[in-house]
């Protein structure tokens, strides 16, 4: 027994706002769509693990201080964990916000300005976070 409808569904093309180019010669949007799913699965493990360790396990946020971070980042395992989490979460979130800007902005100028702000903030944040993980000195105390 088949549950499928005999009529193929007709779905309007999404994001077809008037006056915007709908066709592209590249597959950028396909790769962005795929990246969201692949990075999403990895982030489920990295972020939920991070939240469990930092907020719930063994006293949660109350036990976190500089020495706690120093102890964790003395291990390359947690350095790689945090580095991967930083890059994937930032790119995943930036692409999500890019989609939202594309959906809700009505003027080209607004869209360009918001995306410019977004990409600038993302670049600075990824660079800062990476620098901190790589140049952190656990013996500073």
């Amino acid at each position, binding site marked *: 027994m088949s549950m499928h409808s005999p009529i193929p569904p007709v779905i309007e093309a999404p994001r077809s706002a008037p006056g915007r180019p709908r066709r592209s010669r590249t597959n950028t949007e396909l790769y962005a769509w795929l990246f969201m799913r692949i990075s999403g699965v990895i982030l489920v493990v990295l972020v939920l693990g991070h939240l469990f360790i930092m907020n719930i396990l063994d006293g949660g946020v*109350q036990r976190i201080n500089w020495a706690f971070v120093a102890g964790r980042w003395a291990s390359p395992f947690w350095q790689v964990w945090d580095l991967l989490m930083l890059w994937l979460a930032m790119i995943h*979130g930036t692409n999500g916000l890019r989609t939202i800007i594309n959906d809700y902005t009505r003027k080209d100028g607004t869209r360009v300005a918001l995306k410019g702000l977004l990409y600038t903030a993302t670049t600075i944040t990824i660079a800062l976070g990476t620098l901190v993980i790589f140049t952190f000195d656990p013996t500073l105390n």
Partner: protein
Amino acid sequence: MSTDAPAAPAQTTPPPVAKKSRKPAGTLYRGREGMWSWVAHRITGVLTFFFLFAHVLDTALVRVSPESYDKVIDTYKNPFVNLMEIGLVGAVLFHALNGLRIIAIDFWSKGPRLQRQMLWTIVTVWVVVMVPGAFFMFKHSFELIFGSK
């Protein structure tokens, strides 16, 4: 030019008409669970992303001095901020579980048909995880407010 060209074959069979249904095709993201989970996914995503900027900045203080880092991290231990952390964990957990549901809708052949059941499944998982999660996250704040610590 002759006008007695063969006429187009008369349409004897009417085009198939969809069976009258209250629910038109292609409504996965229109109304009810499909739409509201999409709205919640956007809101929780934006919320998490904006917190991420602040969180990278506060963590960057480990590079400045142990004192400055500890001072800012103490903010997170305040009972009111602690409540907002529970909210953030709830938002991230919903976004994670619903993200897995979206992947199932996109890649699993039965996904679109079971999307509603999958939403109520993840909502149940969310409640089952959040009840003990919120308890352990707020335990210290509770003891602080009601004086046993």
